[in-house]
């Protein structure tokens, strides 16, 4: 099976060799028409939450304000996800183009690209892109003679996973503690420095540029009815060929992605389970993999496409080790604001840490209760999804993880 090259189709890194076709096209269109085109494409946000991009732009466009901001979210923190890094390194000009188009559409004259601090190379590459674009007048005043003014600043993240959440990211840019804001108001109404702000993921913006460039019709011809276009899939784990693959939605099943693109499991290991959308999504078992890779099919299977990270786990791993690893991540990364997420993840970690013999029924119930509480009551998406992995492992490997009747363990 071959990749479907929509985003990866042309990778130009030298600004002198790039013509910004989509941007030039957009600047000749009315702002509203750019928004209509993106809305028509049904592009959904690629950061994980899947909010319709065109609608977001339209909401921000309709806000009356003396100032608006466009933010490109490159704080790619979901473990197993590395598509934005790939785009920033390999297609930075397309990302810049997407930023400029979005800014033009919503009426922003200033913007930020927020890149996670650990991404040394993307930061280097994009800093240079910004510098060169300023020199060439692609950033600044009267871009391509259109009368559109826009400047862009790069902000480095400081290592907090929560800053991938758009309101936390906005706080971070403002120099505040990285934690989510209470919504409403949504960023499109009151975002950065209290001005209407659109926050879009790197892949979303690059896709938007290609949608303008190749047209919404081309985009609509790809994928399924509910999942249009393509997706950069980050394939990792115990497979032979990890990497970034661009796939048309519905083109392949999860199993085909693993076997055809990933080359199957390495070292001849058997498959234990797959994390289909990053570690904040629920796992799928071997017998659940024959589903097309689309938003709707993964939802129907009780999981989510998330950020596009497909992590394949072979059978040699210890389940408690894996849960402990994920739990440690969420415990360390909760921002500390809301009690269920902060205390719940801490308690789960402590419970897992000393477990080698399996769980008692009482502990099982407690973990279920905490998981439910975090999911229902946490303040932001980080907390709400933080127990998906652990809960699904416990559900799906219950027999393996529970204390057997003949072993007497206190609890």
């Amino acid at each position, binding site marked *: 099976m071959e990749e479907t090259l929509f985003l990866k189709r042309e990778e130009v890194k030298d600004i002198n060799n790039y013509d910004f076709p989509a941007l030039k096209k957009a600047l000749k269109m009315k702002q509203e028409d750019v928004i209509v085109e993106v809305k028509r494409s049904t592009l959904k946000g690629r950061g994980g939450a899947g909010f319709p991009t065109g609608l977001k732009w339209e909401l921000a466009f309709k806000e009356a304000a003396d100032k608006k901001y466009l933010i490109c979210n490159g704080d790619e923190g979901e473990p197993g996800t590395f598509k934005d890094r790939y785009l920033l390194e390999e297609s930075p000009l397309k990302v810049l183009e997407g930023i400029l188009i979005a800014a033009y559409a919503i009426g922003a004259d200033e913007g930020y690209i927020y890149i996670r601090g650990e991404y040394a190379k993307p930061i280097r590459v994009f800093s240079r892109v910004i510098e060169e674009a300023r020199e060439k007048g692609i950033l600044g005043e009267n871009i391509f003679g259109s009368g559109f003014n826009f400047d862009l600043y790069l902000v480095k993240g400081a290592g*907090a996973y*929560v800053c991938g959440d758009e309101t936390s990211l906005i706080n971070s840019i403002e120099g505040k*503690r*990285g934690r989510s804001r*209470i919504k*409403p108001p949504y960023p499109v109404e009151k975002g950065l420095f209290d001005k209407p702000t659109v926050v879009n993921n790197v892949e979303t913006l690059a896709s938007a540029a290609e949608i303008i460039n190749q047209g919404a019709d081309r985009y609509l011809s790809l994928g399924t009815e509910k999942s249009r276009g393509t997706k950069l899939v980050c394939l990792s784990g115990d497979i032979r060929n990890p990497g970034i693959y661009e796939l048309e939605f519905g083109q392949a099943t999860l199993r085909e992605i693993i076997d055809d693109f990933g080359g199957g499991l390495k070292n001849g290991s058997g498959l234990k389970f797959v994390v289909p959308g990053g570690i904040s999504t629920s796992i799928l078992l071997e017998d659940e993999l024959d589903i097309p890779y689309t938003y709707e099919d993964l939802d129907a299977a009780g999981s989510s496409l998330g950020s596009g990270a497909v992590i394949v786990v072979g059978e040699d791993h210890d389940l408690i080790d894996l849960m402990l690893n994920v739990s440690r991540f969420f*415990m*360390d*990364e*909760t*921002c*500390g*604001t*809301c*009690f*269920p997420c*902060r*205390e*719940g*993840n*801490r*308690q789960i970690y*402590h419970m897992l840490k000393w477990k080698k013999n399996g769980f008692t029924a*009482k502990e099982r119930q*407690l973990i279920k*209760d*905490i998981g*439910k*509480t975090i*999911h*229902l*009551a*946490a*303040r932001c998406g980080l907390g*709400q999804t933080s127990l998906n992995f652990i809960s699904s492992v416990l559900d799906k490997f219950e027999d393996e993880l529970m204390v057997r009747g003949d072993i007497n363990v206190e609890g």
Partner: protein
Amino acid sequence: MLKVNIDGQNLEVAEGTTILEAAKKAHIKIPTLCYEEGLSIYGGCRLCVVEVEGENLLQPACATEIRDGMIVRTHSPKVREVRKTLFELIIASHDISCELNCLTCSRNGSCELRKVAEDIGITEIRLSPINKGYGEDKSSYAIMREPNKCITCGRCIRKCEEVQGIGIFTMANRGPATIVTTFGDKGMGNVECTNCGQCIHACPTGALHEVYHYESVWDVLHDESKHVVVQTAPAVRVAISEAFGDEPGTIATGQMVAALRRLGFDKVFDTNFSADLTIMEEGTELIQRIKEGGTLPLFTSCSPGWIKFIEHFYPEFLPHLSSCKSPQQMFGAIAKSYYAEKNNIPREDLVVVSVMPCTAKKFEAKRPEMDGDVDYVLTTRELAGMIKAAGIDMVNLEEEEYDRIMGTSTGAADIFGATGGVMEAALRTAYELITGKELEKLDFYDVRGMTGIKETEVEIDGLTVRAAVAHGLGNVRKLMEMIKAGKEYHFVELMACPGGCIGGGGQPIPTTDEIRQKRIDSIYQIDKNKKLRKSHENPYIKKLYDEYLGEPGSHRAHELLHTHYTARGV
């Protein structure tokens, strides 16, 4: 108006009403911890989550505004189950164990966690407590922090920043390591803390409390070689009985005096006496500054929270501060000179204890420029604790009178306890001293009440005296900025705590706006019922000047009753 159905009750609310506010209207109590009326919404504790029809996830009632047609369930099985688990998590993080014991906590009678536990019907805690292992912050003379008890609800942070306009606290770290701390973890004693203690009122747990002096006071009371005198601030008498279950605003002056005698104090005196003295000195200073073209406006200097505030944030205005010591310190200075000499008590055997509604008074007593005037400062709460510990049924005691002569005062001194009171007391005296005529209307209503900044103008001998009053450091800062921008006054009263001393950081918990108002009403009631309502009419103040000080502003008065300040900056 928006229609909403909460737990089957239909009601209409104005746009912008939150679910929490609407529920209150429907007489439904939703538990909260991080929410406090008057502070910004934090949305952290999540105890107030409710079910909203059409939403998969629960919504925080404090942060969710009513939408038209909303159907809300505040205590559905799902909500109650989540709340219980949530509360288990909170309790585990609060580390109630042998080391952290409710019985020994400063808030054993006023803990909000206990109230929430009762309200949501907690019957078991399945999680073991987590010992966070943080050290205590003992850097301040006034306030102590016990971070192991902190649940990081952020109310102290918001109170300090939003009401008091300072912001010494912040959240640091991430995840479960998140803590409330001061800049650079330097400790409350090493940052711009004014010691006002409003954070203590904001705290739902015992993570913040005053630095205790009561143990030392017990020691001196039991030491036969010591002569121990006590002074009580005006605001204490209208609040202390709340600690014994009385209605807010109950006046318990006589019972408190009786209890203090039973505790073993050799003399029970009144800070009101030195409040009258303060008016004589400060009034004289005002008249002098007006007549001789001194620095104006003159700022009052009774509130030690305000003093530390101006030293940090407006040091360039220090020449405006009255050089008068506060009534607490004037009392100490007179006790250790005049009183000691008159009664032949060696200075080293005389112990002065004060009972204050205030935490900053503990810091004030330790200021090097007046060190030794006052030995120990008890808050209203600490005194209530001592009275209980001695088994004294205070509220049922026969009323007793203060000892003479430092226990006699006028109504002008009583009103020091309420915002605007010092101003009013000073105006009563200044008017009569300047004009030589009797003031007809003693009540200056313009400067009374809970409005943040109050102004008045008084005609005195052809001069229109312009006066302003601010209480709560947030309002104080606003007034200071107005003055900085050119607003002109002759005399300005500034108090660190909302409502003045009756709302001090050492007062019984809870101290809410409603309770503040009741205490204020009682203060003015006491004033109204007094025969003497002007400081210069206090016969024993006259006697003190005749026998010892000479006249207001004399050399001796300056030595004993006046002080200087330190530009601290930020």
